[in-house]
């Protein structure tokens, strides 16, 4: 009897470990090939995509890191992402606050209207959006990418903010109002300082989305000097065709900030990217 359960649990744990390791291999192998591929010569890459480089050659990396284009694109991304995150945090939290703390007619309808935005991907609006951005003269500007990103980030952010604000203790609000504190002051001086976790969660959600976004810059930007890095990467690939060692090095360079940030702010990233399903 015990022997049988033992054997069963042994085979169960072998199966479990097999699955875990296999899945890990599936995930990590492409990373391994990408990072090392940047150190190989093109000829070596062709014959051994998997092994360690026989001769570590950092030229591809150095070329990329010393190119001013690389840094310009990183900077463009930082500007676009920075403004997108700041704008979403401010206007989404303000709107969510009116939903959670102020009574007014038609609130439920207005809320449903905004939440509707979650159902419809940017592609449903992309063509008229392009015409609109063009007609107000924002093609090839940061704003032309920032505004659509903000607009499409709002629905989810308002949802997350509202849920958080409604969990704040009601007494806090009543006490503040009795003391003659206005709604506006209550929001800026009491709610906001208490909302750091949700600001971080929403901030990360918007930040990652904006940093990685490709479709809006692709449509709105034609001028290389304002390209964010994903467009730069695709441009680079177009330029170097199948010089994969260079392209893999470029990929690695663009991945590094993301991985570093992930390891640094794991908790908020997981919370933010799973839409608050995982509590931070």
């Amino acid at each position: 009897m015990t022997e049988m359960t033992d054997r069963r649990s042994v085979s169960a744990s072998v199966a479990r470990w097999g699955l875990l390791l296999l899945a890990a291999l599936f995930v990590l192998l492409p990373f391994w090939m990408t990072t090392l591929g940047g150190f190989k010569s093109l000829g070596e890459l062709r014959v051994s995509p998997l092994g360690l480089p026989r001769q570590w050659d950092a030229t591809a990396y150095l070329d990329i890191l010393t190119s001013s284009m690389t840094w310009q694109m990183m900077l463009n991304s930082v500007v676009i992402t920075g403004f997108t995150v700041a704008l979403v945090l401010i206007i989404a939290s303000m709107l969510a606050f009116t939903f959670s703390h102020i009574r007014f007619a038609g609130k439920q309808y207005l809320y449903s209207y905004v939440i509707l935005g979650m159902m419809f991907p940017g592609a449903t609006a992309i063509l008229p959006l392009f015409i609109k951005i063009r007609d107000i003269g924002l093609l090839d500007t940061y704003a032309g990418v920032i505004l659509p990103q903000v607009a499409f980030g709002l629905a989810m952010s308002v949802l997350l903010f509202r849920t958080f604000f409604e969990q704040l203790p009601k007494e806090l609000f009543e006490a503040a109002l009795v003391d003659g504190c206005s709604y506006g002051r209550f929001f800026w001086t009491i709610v906001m300082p208490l909302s750091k976790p949700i600001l971080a969660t929403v901030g990360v959600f918007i930040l990652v989305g904006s940093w990685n976004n490709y479709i809006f810059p692709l449509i709105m930007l034609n001028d290389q000097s304002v390209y964010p890095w994903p467009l730069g990467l695709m441009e680079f690939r177009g330029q170097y065709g199948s010089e994969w060692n260079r392209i893999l090095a470029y990929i690695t360079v663009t991945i590094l900030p993301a991985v570093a940030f992930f390891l640094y702010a794991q908790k908020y990233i997981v919370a933010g990217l799973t839409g608050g399903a995982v509590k931070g």
Partner: protein
Amino acid sequence: MKSVDIALEAQRTGRLSAVKEWLYRHNTGGRLSTLLLFIPPALMVFTLLVILPIAESGVYSFYRWNGFTALSDSGRWVGWRNFQFILQDPVFHQAVWNTAKIVLISLLIQLPLAMMLALSIASKGSLNTLFRLVYFLPFILADVVAGLIWRFIYDGNFGLVAAFTQLFGMESFYPLADRDWAFNAILVVVVWKYFGYHMMIYIAGLQSVPNDLVEAARLDGAGRLQIIFRIKLPLIMPAIRLSIFFSVIGALQFFEMAMPLVTSGGPSGSAHTIVTYLYEFGIVRSRIGFGSAVAVLLFVMCAIFAFIYQRFVMARNTA
């Protein structure tokens, strides 16, 4: 005369005090002014850049228009012709089928895999945390990066596929250039990038399952599988619903990952999804009306999904 003046005056002050009184009642604590300051920014951005463009897609979809000059100049009313063409286009059928394939692969492979992994590593422990971190890693990459990495892997001259064919002395094989393989190859990348994300959603659910419940069941003689199917899964239904929701929405907007993998929908358009079809025929070829008609169809599909999801998936759980 005078009495009329007095009456008017009284009426005016009356009105004034009524306004004051109304303001006092409604603007306590700056209620009205806060509403007027806090609502418009987000509401305007949302309306102008999300809702209005969606509505405009509806208008444009009835025109033949290249978008270079105003709609009233160069647009030509074509009625339902755009829709007729799209609905009869075999490439569009393929695009819809491919989009459905992403959903199917998610439901049949990706989500069960994510659940199996979640069940194995939901408990605390540093090794489990490490595995979680690894599985989640691809998700933080941009879709274009994930696509480009796999473009290399699938390259018949360089990548993993090349290593494989060389090892067995076979001819070079280019899965992405093969009609039958291209989209399946893309599906592998979808699973690679997203299973860790769904796993994370499940782990969050599993961690909120009370431990004493599981213990009690075990004491009552429930086996491992019974505990999973009778206790854990029913309790984390909200997490499962959420991950299904994200899978379908993700499939409906699938685009960025495909861009570096295949150009113009791959070999004879066999790897198109709805959004790459929209991009190729609406944007690349500057056919705003046609592309808008695709957008309208996409909108309708999203709306149908939203309705079904609300009505059946959400409702069943509250019952």
